[in-house]
Each structure stands twice: as structure tokens, then as C-alpha cells.
């Protein structure tokens, strides 16, 4: 019997590099919308017990790449990344599988802040937006989740269907920034 072949949102589009900045797709594995129902504190401790990361404060992430990670994703909502959610969480939260709903890319390099300042209406400079900070905002006209993962690295999530537009927007900005370097 035929088997269904999986396809990533940015397949065949990435990676590429312009100037000092590299854009690549990342596979985050299982992603689950965790929406609090009831007491937030109870949900946070249940999350900690089950997965070792609590429910993050607004605009923050808990955990790191590789291990379980919880990215704040909206009012009373977080994205649990990595493990399949423990069933016990259902007492405190609505859980929704979003593993296929979002396209995830990493963008990194020396000029990454200059690339993103062309697209994002939030101050993402390191002094204000540190590692572990996250924002729900827009990238161009695309609704996005943007998280700083390193001094020159960000994780960006957008709806899967907009992967091509995301790549287009980022590549335009990357080229423009690279051209300025060329001008010295």
C-alpha cells in the first residue's frame, strides 16, 4: 500500500545566505497550542511536572532548542515544542496539535537585526530584546512569532501557507542589507 510522503513548508526554497545572514528552515517536531482554561498557576506547575518547562510569562520563552521548549504565543496561550503533550495537561488547558500548522525558520548572522528591522515593527535590538524574549507581531504583512535564540539568531514562525511569502520578504531584506555592506 502507498505511504504518504511528508513535505516541509519551505522544502526546496531554503537555505540561502546573503551577505552575513543565513536563512534556513528548522523542523521543530511536535508543536502543541496550550491554552489555559482555569488557573494559570496550576497549568504552569502541571507543565513543569510533565515536561520540565513551565508556562512562560508574556513575551518570554522557557527551555532551549533541543529540549522541551515553551514559547509564549498570545493571551493565555503558549506553544509547547518538542514533546507530545502529556494527557494530564488537559485538565488545565485546551491542547491543539499544531505540528503542521506553522512554518519555522531560523535567521542568523551579523546583520540579522538590520534584516529584521526592515520587516518587524518591534524593537528587536539585543539591548531590548534578549535571548529568550519572544513577540507576536507582524513580519511585513504576515502574522508571526519571533523569538531571539542567540546573540545573532532568531526563530520565526508563520502560518505554513505563507512560507513562500516569508522567504520572499526575508530574502528581499537580506539582499538590501547585503548591498549596503557592499557600498562600504
Amino acid at each position, binding site marked *: 500500500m502507498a505511504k504518504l*510522503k511528508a513535505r516541509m513548508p519551505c522544502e526546496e526554497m531554503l537555505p540561502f545566505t546573503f551577505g552575513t545572514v543565513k536563512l534556513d528552515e528548522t523542523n521543530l517536531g511536535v508543536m502543541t497550542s496550550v491554552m489555559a482554561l482555569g488557573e494559570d498557576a496550576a497549568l504552569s506547575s502541571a507543565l513543569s511536572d510533565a515536561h520540565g518547562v513551565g508556562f512562560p510569562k508574556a513575551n518570554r520563552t522557557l527551555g532551549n532548542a533541543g529540549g522541551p521548549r515553551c514559547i509564549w504565543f498570545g493571551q493565555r496561550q503558549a506553544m509547547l515544542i518538542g514533546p507530545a503533550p502529556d494527557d494530564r495537561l488537559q485538565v488545565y488547558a485546551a491542547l491543539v496539535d499544531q505540528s503542521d*500548522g506553522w512554518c519555522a525558520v531560523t535567521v542568523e548572522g551579523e546583520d540579522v537585526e538590520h534584516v529584521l528591522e526592515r520587516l518587524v515593527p518591534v524593537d528587536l535590538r539585543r539591548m531590548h530584546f534578549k535571548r529568550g524574549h519572544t513577540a507576536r507581531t507582524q513580519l*511585513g504583512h504576515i502574522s508571526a512569532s519571533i523569538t531571539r535564540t542567540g546573540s545573532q539568531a532568531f526563530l520565526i514562525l508563520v502560518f505554513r501557507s505563507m512560507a513562500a*511569502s516569508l522567504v520572499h520578504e526575508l530574502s528581499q531584506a537580506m539582499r538590501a542589507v547585503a548591498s549596503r555592506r557592499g*557600498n562600504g
Partner: protein
Amino acid sequence: MRIKGKGLVDRSDPVTFRFDGRSYDGFAGDTVASALLANDVKLMGRSFKYHRPRGVLTAGSEEPNALITVGAGASAEPNVRATTQEIYEGLEVRSQNAWPSLDLDALAVNNLFAPLLGAGFYYKTFMWPKAFWERVYEPVIRRAAGLGGLSGQPNPDTYERAFAFCDVLVIGAGPAGLMAALTAARAGADVIIADEDARPGGRLNAELLEVDGELGHVWAARAVAELESMSNVRVMSRTTVTGAYDQGTFGALERVNQHRGGRSDGAPLECFWRIVTKHSILAAGAIERPIAFQNNDRPGIMTAGAVRAYLNRWGVSPGRAVTVFTNNNDAYRTAQDMVAAGVRVAAVIDSRADVRSTGEFPVYRGAQVCNSNGGKELESISIIVNGKSEKIQTDCLAMSGGWNPTVHLTCHMNSRPTWRADIQAFVPTEGAVPGMSTAGACRGTFSTHGCLTEGAAAAREVLAALGKKVSDTALPQAEDAPYNLAPLWAVAGKGRAWLDFQNDVCVKDVKQAAVENFRSVEHMKRYTTQGMATDQGKNSNVAALAVLADATGRGIPQTGTTTFRPPYSPVAIAAMGAGAQGKGFAPQRFTTSHRASVAAGAPMIEAGLWYRPSYFPKPGEKTWRQSCDREVNHVRNAVGICDVSTLGKIDIQGPDAAALLDFVYINTFSTLKVGRVRYGLMLREDGTVLDDGTCARLGATRFVMTTTTAAAGTVMRHLEFVAQCLRPEWQVAMTSTTEQWAQFAVAGPKSRELLNGLLDAPIDNDNWPFMACGEVSVLGVGGRLFRISFSGEHAYEIAVPARYGEALFRELVARAEGLGGGAYGMEALNVLRIEKGFITHSEIHGRTTAYDVGMGRMISATKDCIGKVMAARPGLVVKDRERLVGFKPIGAVKQLSAGAHVFAAGAQASRENDQGYITSVGFSPSFGAYIGLGFVKSGPERYGEVMRAVDHLHELEVEVEICPPVFVDPEGRRARG
């Protein structure tokens, strides 16, 4: 004429450029204007109305005369100020608004007819005969109007936009701005300093004034270097702050590559910045005023500060025998600098009688220039001194009527500037822009010392507000000369004395406006077009106001004020709309089956932001209709596959999820069993239909709602509104899962047969009846199966995680083809749903109620819901409302069109007789005829009536029978089979 040893241009870097086809030499650092003046070219443009020959008036972005077109072909850029365009090797520029040439301009004949072309003449004539306005007068006027021209081709250049954030934005990098930035930056504030010039420094680059014992431009360069070395500072040169907006937001235009040829691919020409700041310091300087006198527009007549700037910054003397006409002290600097540079100064004409000024040049005190003489270049001026007329030979007159502080940005949030009599000028009103302070010349403080002092003081205030410790920055030493001025706006006399140079508004025009009762300054401006030119009145508004005040016998502050709106200087549409050209205007959303559909040759059409296949052509099919008919037949007779992933899917969970659904749908969902789906209709609060769709109950407290593709976002927002604003006490959470699932309709009598080949556990009519739903395993992948139908056939929608979407779609289509069916697109989908009378947003177009679409009885009587009360308004339940019906053509013409209006048989097709209209049509292969849906007054009561459907635009008139909107299987047996 270039002056040896003068100027800041790089003499080691010669640059060649072309103006009107002729080659000229200049140096790096030159503008087109300075380089042309160095080559003794004085004629650079023509005025708007009279086509008067014009030379350069200023040395900055306020230039009204010397407007040129840069480049050629598609990237030609009109209306560039020669005074700001830097030259580069290979630059090609042309003059404008002249034909056949700048020197011999045919429309200069307008100048002879000037007496007929006074203020507002066009309001009084061109009215006869009536049809001549569009046919004769207007085309002639239009052709003559305008300045430069667009190429007419798509803009080939790249532009970008960006956001920047800071604690303090310093606008202007003259002495005040640089001092403010240094003070703030040294204390650790997050600073952006922006200046429109390529070279920061402001007037320090144009003067020979000293700061701390060195030339001002040297101090400025040192300050800029220090700022650029600091990580908390961003120095933005060639960047004009164009507008002040709410909550500390500023627009700014950076000319990234306008000064360079041969840009690399992807390099932006300009960048439009949105700068967000806690505080701003306006240090934008001042703009010198011309004085109105007869023929004051002749090439060679310039502002005094501009003449000085050309000498000191660019090493150019605009003349060989310079005269100065002034009402203030400042212009004497021009004479002094000229003499020091070895240029002859023929005279200084000072309108003030009581001054004791001297220099190495003749000074006429209490004198006025009353006329200029020459052809296309100044040859001499006539002056009146002690009541006597004298003529002075001169090829450059430097005039100064005083300085206007650059208050523009302080007006952008509706504040009006304040009149200051001592300097005869408007200054910013305190608090005009929240968070903005002002320093230096833009607030009427003109000495270098004053500018430095105020810049530092403004920064210290900001630092205090930011809670930062003020660093000990010593104030540099600089001149503190007094600015002494006696008002002189217009020299009395006959003839035309220009105020607004570009628009050819003269003193007499303002006076005539006053006579004709355009005495309000706003009326005068609109009647004469004063201040409407590309300089936004920067050079002329205050003088025009003064002339109006005089003409109406009022003081200047009593007459009115002047205001300015964004942008400070004009901004290219391409810059503010950067990235939107072509496909960049809105994000594109692609379904997982997109590639497969394109590979199958399907034309993809826009559905909101999504792309969906229109139809799937097969070899031998010549028209879309042939494909569509085949696809409809597939579904009716075998099985069809359609990607329906674009429909909104909202996962709704929580103890109060059912209550929420009961509240937003007109029908009841709390009674729905787990594992079942129900159709629902939701209203806006005003009683009209918002959207429709199915909603499945996956668990006791979990539902999945589907919305139409078009309304997915609107419905999500509506649900959040209800949950957060109306019922925050409810425990309910929702999120969109539209993107998580790839979902396909599998429709037709063979749909179950097809699915059973894919599902790991087979289904039958008992375990999966009509309107059942649940989880399934599809070729080993977990998915969802809904037995719902938008075609009326036995049908399902099957969903898998999106990563498997493409694979499943290909698999489904292949299997469907094996069963005598195949993929179907939007055209077939539309026909199928019309045949069943299912509505889309063509019918629920925002003006229809549940009653109108035949679902009035679905509104539950036993519960409240959004829209229920207002839907019962008397006007919305009358019988003769336009209500949903079907249409069948029954006469000789069998065509229907979804633009036709419907009339009673025999009635004239007029608005008074209008009975309704057709909203959707399709050719039904099942009937072998066109059928349609639409609305007719008292619709359901008129079934069987024969009416006229008239589409004037398509020249189509059809006899139609009004019928129930369900054409196929009205009992609904097929879907249940």
C-alpha cells in the same frame, strides 16, 4: 565660476555629468546646481504658469526653480532639486517644463498674456460652450500644466522600508543638532541623529564661522566622527525626517543610493524609515526669505545664504560682480565672504536707514532694489535710494528678507506656529508635538553660540526625563552676533514681484485676491495657488501672509498663520509603498495541493489571499466550460476530489464551548452529539448574515468550526469579541487550525468506495452516516473524516496533517481517476452548489438576513443569540423583501448572467420596476441548461412566475421562471445514500 582654494568639494576627484545633453565637469561633493554654477550655467528651469526663465534660488531642498529630471527611460525621476542632487560619474539630468528647449521655450508666450492669467482667471471663463471644457480647454490646460513627466513605465528600482527605535531623535545635524546629539550620546542615551544633507553640519558647512577656534565644518566633522564611533548612536545622513505622527513616531526618507550610479541588484534607491522615539529634538535650522520686487525671479538672483553656501561649501561664485539686497545683518556675511574670496561686491543695498554697517564694498542704506534687468540672466539691478533711481551692473544679486525658522514638523500634529515680532517670523509653539523640544535656528535663535547652547540644553532636559546622568560637556566657543532685522516683504512699485516663484504668484495676485474677498489666508492660498508648489510655500508663505495683511489692513498675526502638513519634503510613492509592487502587495497563501494542481495544468485563481484551482483541463478540452462540465459529471456520477483546506477551521474547547456556539449561531449546538456535524448560520449583531458553515463535535467540550474561506479571519475575531468582551466569564479557548490540516472533499456516489481503499478501517453507512465525523487512519496517518456535502452528493471531507497534504491529494486524485472521476476546481464546485441551492458570499453579501436566504425559521426561539433581536426589526421581516430564489431560463435565450436585474414580464427595465437580481449562475450539465440563484421581492411566493432578467451591460435579456433554489435532489437522498 569656481574659486580657487575655496569649498569642501574634493578637487582630486573630478566627475563628469550631462545636463540637457551637454557634458559638464564638477567634483565629488558637488550638487548639480553647484557644478552648473561653476560652469557658469545659470538657466536651469522654467516656471509653472508663465514659463519664465529661472536659475537656482537656494542651495537646499526648498529649491522652487531648479527642478530637473534625473536619468532616462523607465527609471527617469522628475522634479529632482538640482540643489540636492549630488553628481556622480555618468549622471544624466534634463531640464523640465520647456519645449522645444530650455533656452527657447514656446510657452514663454504665456508671459505676454500674463495680464489675462491673473489669480483665479480660470474660474471666470472657459464656460462656453458647455461641452468645450472637457474637449478643448481642459486638455490644453492639462498639457501646459505639470512640471516633469513620469516615464509611463513600471518603476524598475528597488525601495525599502524599515523601523528604528531610540530614546531621542535629533532632527538636523547643524550646530544645535550636533550639540544635542553629543550631549545625549555621551550620557549613554540611545540616539538617532538624522540630516537631509549628504554632509552633516548644516550651516557650519556654508559659513566661515569658527567653533572652538576651528572652522565650523571641521568641528562638525569631528563631532560626526565621534557620534559615529559610539554604539548607542545612529547617524543618518541623506535622511529627511518627513513627518511627525502620534506617540513619538516619525517618518523619514533616506536616499540610500540616489548619489550613485551603477547600483547592484537588490540595492535600494531609497529607504522609508519609521522612527519611534521617546523624545525628539528639532534642530532643523531656518530658511532664508527672498524679497519681492519687480522681476526678482531672474536667473542670477538668489538668497544671500545660498550665494554664501555656493562659495564656502562648493567653492563657486554664482557671479563676478555680486550685489546684496538685505533687511538684516546676516546678509553682510555674503559680501564679506565674497570679498575675502576675491570676488567683487558691487554694492550692498540695505533697506534699513539707521544701520552703521561697513565693509570693503559700497553700502546703500535706506535703499531698495526695485527692478532687475537682463534677459535670461541678470545684468543689472535698479535701486531706489533717497527717492532717486540708480542702476548697478551685477550678474548675481544675493537677497535676504530674513530667515524663517523651519517649524514644519511642529505643525504636523495640528499645532500652529507663533508669531515673533522681533524676528518677524513664526516660531514653534511650545508643546506642539508631544515629546518634542526645539533648539537653534528653528526656534528663532540664529547665532552659533545660541544654537550650541540650546542644543545642549534640549539634550539635558531629555536626559533628565530619561533618568540619565548628564555628562559634563563643555560648550564650545562660538560667535554670538545679534540678528537685527527691519521688516521688508515687498518693494512698492509696478509690475510683477514674485512671491511663489514656481507657481508664479506675484504680489499683485495676493492683492487682487483680497479685493475679491479672499481675505482669509486659506482663501488667498487656494485662490492664487500661493504655497501649493513643490516647496510647500517654504520660500514664500510668510511673505504672502504679510502682503495679505497689508492689503487687508490687518497685522500679520491677526491675518492668520501658516501651517505645514507631512511630508516635509516630497517622498516617492515607491518609497512609502516599498515592496508592494508585483506580488509583494499582500502575502500569498498556498495550499498543500498547489504544486500538484499547477502540474495538472489548473489555472490558479485568487480566493482572498489563497490560490485555488479554477478547473483541471484534460487533453482535447478547448474551453473551461468543457472541463467544468466534466468535473461536475464526475461528482454526480463517480467521485471528485477538491482541496477545501482554505475554509477556516477553528478549534473551540472548554466547559462553555457549547454555550459559545449557541450564542453565535442562530441554531442550537449544545444538543449536538459527539461524533456529529451540524450546519450553522451566524449573524452579525445587526441581524444580517455573517457567515455559515459546519461545526463538528469532537468531544464533550470540544468542537471544530468551519468558516467560509473569505470570512475566516472575521469569524475568528468575532468569536474572540464574544468570548472576551461579552462573555469573559465563560471558560472557553479557541485557536485556528486552518493550517494544521489539509482537507479534501471526496464527493460522489463512489466516494466511499474510494475512501475504503485508503482508510485503515473501512466505513459504511451505519458506522459513518450522513453528518458523522471522527478520527480515522489514512494510509497509516492519523486524520479526520467528516461526512458532509457541499455538492448534495454522498460526500466526505478527509483531513490529514498538512505535511501529508500533497501526497494525499495526489493519491486521492489518482484513485478518483481510476474510478472514472478526478479532481475538480472552483468552477465545478460553484455549479454543484448552485444546483443544490447552497449559498456563498455571493448570496450572503452583507445585506441579507436569515429570513432572506430562507433560514428564518432556523433562529431558535428558545435562546438568545447574536443578531436575533435586530433581525426582528420590522423592516427586516416584511414579506416583500428580496428573498432567495432559483432562476431557470425558459424562453428562446438560454443564457443567464450574474449581473442581471429582474423585472415583471412586460415591465420596463427601470429602477422603479426593479424586482431583484441574480447573484450566481452556472451551466448545469445535469439539466443541460443555465441555472441561477438570486433574490426577488417576495421570492418564495412567486415560484412559477415568469419574469424578465435584463443585463444591459452584456446586452442580454432572458425570460426566467422563478423557482425554488434547490435544483437537484431536493429531498436530499443522495447525500444520505
